[in-house]
């Protein structure tokens, strides 16, 4: 597809950005208007994302719908946007999830009485969500590394206010303790990610110096750098490449998050409201794994190869450690957070297995994990807001009282444990196959993660939903219409993509070929008949 003069990508990012400002400007008294405005904006963004997906030609150029403008010439920075197959599905995922996040958080930021009239938490909450959406979309679309970096870092600020400013009121030690924990979680989130980002900044500057030395003019354009590498104009020395890789990877590993840099995630997800937790794990963190695939592998193929053994081990540890800790959690949201760490381990595993199945699986995993975690977390959030407690022990027998809630919770949980027939199964299978074909031992160990996932999901379900009806649970209302509206489409997607993943794979597979050629890898030849081969 040829370049289009219409800046569709810019528009897709600009709509939520402008929407955020408009939402923030709504007067204090008109809270409902702010909510509707935010929802409307997010739906328009969804439509635009759908247009991108339709206009994207899977078998066309690597980057499509490209836009390129001069921005900060002194730094060699251009405003360059473009989508490849991976970015298309992730933008679609982001645009898809935000309306549900907004709907699910409809009442989360209503002011609680005695505040001054100038304090407008509701407007702030929805404006911040839209701001995060805009920034995430830009970082998926940016093909200029500096542009990516700017939004990768800048999104921390609205995220930080969302975590610190709008936590769960439900806390076992009362509201004051909740506020303290929340602010701790927000600061931890920010400092971890800021530290990662600043280390990356050093690497970004290093990349500029390298391109400046060798190409005559420093550039951050991904396409230019890839082209220069392919033409042999740009030769980064082994040591420099490894250092730059480490700088980039560190930031993405914090964001993803990979063990042992994961400790901010349980705090952040535990203390924030369920919709914000979904925003963190299903949307924002995806930028980390996406960037590993696009930037670490694309810019530093040899260093990626060099680091693979270590990264694979870290991914394995994440899978097992996350799952084991999930089993041990008393708090529902922290359980889901640790489950996510386990899942991010799978994604990183798929990326660094360096097979096309692994890459395709990792990309699908990002999407499916987003949807399944959103479903599970949002239903958990509905449950928590009813009972006012995050502790698993406070529940029991919910399925007798609120069968629809319990049923949707179960489907979300089963998706999380990758039940065949639901979407996550496809991606988890692809990741494991992709890993196994190159590293059989690691593939086998990773499979243990699936077993552990079954334990933490089913134990969670059993303790909360089955058994005798717990005190204070008896009068819980079932899902309301608004909540059904949030959960039903997500579940439909989980089932639909589980049965028929072809639309996604058709977009992702050709794109994965590019990332494979970046790292100059081809899939290992399958051993068709090992017995015969041994005889020959």
């Amino acid at each position, binding site marked *: 597809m040829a370049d289009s003069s219409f800046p569709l990508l810019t528009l897709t990012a600009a709509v939520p950005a402008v929407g955020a400002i408009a939402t923030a400007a709504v007067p204090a008294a008109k809270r409902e208007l702010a909510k509707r405005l935010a929802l409307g904006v997010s739906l328009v963004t969804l439509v635009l994302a759908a247009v991108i997906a339709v206009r994207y030609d899977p078998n066309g150029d690597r980057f499509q719908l490209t836009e390129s403008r*001069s*921005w*900060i*010439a*002194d*730094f060699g920075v251009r405003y360059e946007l473009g989508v490849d197959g991976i970015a298309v599905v992730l933008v679609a995922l982001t645009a898809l999830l935000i309306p549900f996040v907004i709907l699910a958080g409809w009442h989360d930021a209503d002011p609680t009485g005695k*505040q*001054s009239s*100038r*304090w*407008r938490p509701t407007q702030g909450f929805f404006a911040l969500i839209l701001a995060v959406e805009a920034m995430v979309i830009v970082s998926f679309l940016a093909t200029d590394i500096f542009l990516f*970096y*700017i*939004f990768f*870092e*800048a999104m*921390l*600020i609205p995220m*930080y*206010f969302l975590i*610190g*400013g709008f936590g769960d009121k439900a806390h076992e030690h009362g509201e004051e303790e909740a*506020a303290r924990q*929340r*602010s701790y979680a*927000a*600061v931890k989130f*920010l*400092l971890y990610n*800021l*530290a990662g980002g*600043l*280390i990356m*900044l*050093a690497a970004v*500057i*290093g990349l*500029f*110096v390298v391109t*400046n030395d060798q190409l005559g003019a420093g550039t951050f354009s991904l396409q230019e750098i890839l082209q220069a590498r392919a033409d042999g104009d740009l030769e980064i020395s082994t040591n420099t490449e490894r250092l730059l890789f480490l700088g980039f990877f560190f930031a993405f590993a914090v964001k993803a998050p990979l063990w042992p840099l994961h400790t901010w995630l349980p705090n952040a997800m535990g203390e924030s409201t369920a919709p914000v937790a979904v925003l963190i794990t299903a949307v924002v963190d995806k930028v980390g794994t996406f960037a590993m695939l696009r930037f670490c592998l694309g810019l530093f193929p040899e260093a990626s190869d060099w680091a693979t053994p270590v990264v694979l081990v870290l991914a394995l540890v994440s899978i097992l450690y996350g799952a084991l800790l999930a089993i041990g959690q008393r708090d529902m949201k922290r359980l889901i957070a640790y489950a996510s760490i386990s899942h991010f381990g799978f994604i990183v595993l798929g990326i660094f297995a360096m097979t096309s199945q692994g890459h395709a699986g990792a990309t699908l995993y990002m999407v499916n994990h987003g949807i399944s975690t959103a479903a599970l977390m949002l239903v958990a959030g509905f449950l928590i807001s009813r009972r006012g407690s995050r502790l698993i022990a406070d529940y029991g027998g919910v399925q007798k009282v609120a069968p629809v809630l319990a049923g949707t919770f179960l489907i979300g949980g089963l998706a999380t444990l990758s039940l065949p027939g639901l979407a996550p199964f496809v991606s988890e299978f692809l990741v494991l196959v992709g890993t196994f074909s190159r590293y059989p031992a690691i593939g086998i160990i990773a499979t243990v993660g699936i077993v552990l996932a079954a334990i933490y999901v089913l134990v969670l379900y059993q303790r909360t939903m089955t058994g005798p009806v717990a005190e204070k649970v008896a009068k819980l209302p079932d899902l309301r219409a608004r909540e059904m509206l949030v959960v039903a489409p997500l579940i439909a997607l989980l089932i639909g993509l589980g049965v028929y993943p072809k639309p996604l794979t058709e977009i992702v597979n050709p794109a994965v070929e590019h990332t494979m050629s970046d790292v100059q890898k081809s899939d290992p030849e399958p051993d068709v008949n090992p017995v015969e081969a041994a005889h020959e």
Partner: protein
Amino acid sequence: MSRGVHSLWMAQDGIDKIKAPHIEYDLLAPTLIVIGAAVLGVAIEAFVPRRHRYTAQVGLAVLAMAGAFGAVIALAVSGKGTDEAQIAAMGALAVDGPALFLQGVILLVGVLAVFTFAERRLDPVAHGKQVDSFAAEAAAVPGGKAEQAAVKAGFTTTEVFPLLMFATGGMLIFPAANDLLTLFIALEVFSLPLYLLCAVARRKRLMSQEAAVKYFLLGAFSSAFLLFGIALLYGYSGSVRYAEIADVVAGNPQKMTPALADTMGNDALLLIGGAMVLLGLLFKVGAVPFHMWTPDVYQGAPTPVTGYMAAATKVAAFGALLRLLYVVLPGLKWDWRPVMWGVAIVTMVIGAILAITQTDVKRLLAYSSIAHAGFILAGVTAANEEGISSVLFYLAAYAFVTLGAFSVVTLVRDAGGEATHLSKWAGLGRRSPLVAAVFAVFLLAMAGIPLTSGFAGKFAVFKAAAEGGATPLVVVGVIASAIAAFFYVRVIVLMFFSEPRPEGPAVTVPSAFTVTAIAVGLAATLVLGVAPQYFLDLAGNAGVFVR
């Protein structure tokens, strides 16, 4: 005349050959306007009735600063910053890109400082008179009868405006000074008014006077070092002119004299002299280990003065430092670079670490300014053209952020005046979301978050440093940034996520003066962050020193 001693006044050529000094008034217009207005301001104090002085002084100061800024623009437009850069006033001053750029920044900061000085809406009305942040009668003993009488009479210290203009005049000369004596004179011209300004706070007067005395004593020490260093450099090279010293350092002086032949080989004179001059300048920029005065002075001085001092002094002093290192001592690059590396590293790290434990917002900003001095020094050590232009850009970005941040500090008040203790800022974001959000933007800019001017500036200096081969400095720089981020974030947490205290301070609604200062600071912060290209070009074009 004994051999081996330079003589300034060897009238070998006969007394009739001494020419009358030639002064290019047009090239010196910015400085002349400001200093002239300052003199006029003194006359106003002497002759204009007290009730008209405030209006007259504010009007004069704004006009002078704006006029001088116009003159700077006119000079820049006529190419004096690039192709037609030249030495003026018989070699005393350089009119070139860096000088004009920094003079422009200093004058803009100066205008905004006049606004914050002129603010009279913040302090409660005393005896029917609106008063500003300055003592009713600076000479009166704090708490004494004379002070009470002055307060009752509604006196105000309108002398601050001429003082501000004298300081600004000195700062305009400082980065343009092209010989060591002019450098020293400029230093004193801007330092002495600043010492006085520090002492004239309306509230907490003892603390203010203590700050002034500390600043004066330590400043006097550093001036002495600077002066001694100048003497040694003169002893080494037989000249105070930058270009001539540079020639001698490079080993090919224009005119060889027996005295020069004798002293030229004496590296001890050169190294010690250079180090002492550097020390004097590093004191003014607040680099570790010459930073001790910064927190006390920043805390004690009236906040508008602190804001002005933090912004403009740093701009002027870094300008002078750049010129010294790049024009006088480039031949000594291999000697000063390791030293400046060390100073930059300890400045970044110590500034960031000490800031963490601060509990007063003004002290916090003081330590933050130390850390910033370290980041700027990282750009200075680059010793290439990017080094100059990135430092220029950083200074512009930093000046507006700092002035804006201190202006916000003046707004947060309780019964005792400005509430600078951090615990009192708890929950400010809930009471006054707008003010807290603006302050948060300034803090984020200082932390170097993308889309703010702080990030663009930090990126520019780190890039220059990396290109100059100072990769370890960049790594230390990003680590220090991460540490620094912690305390900026802590203040934001306090403002937004803590419950407001019942007896906490309130935000006073300021007049249009302070609003303008804050708005301009905010606009500069965002514009330099989102669309920095124009200003980077400006700094890039201005990045060449004339010799």
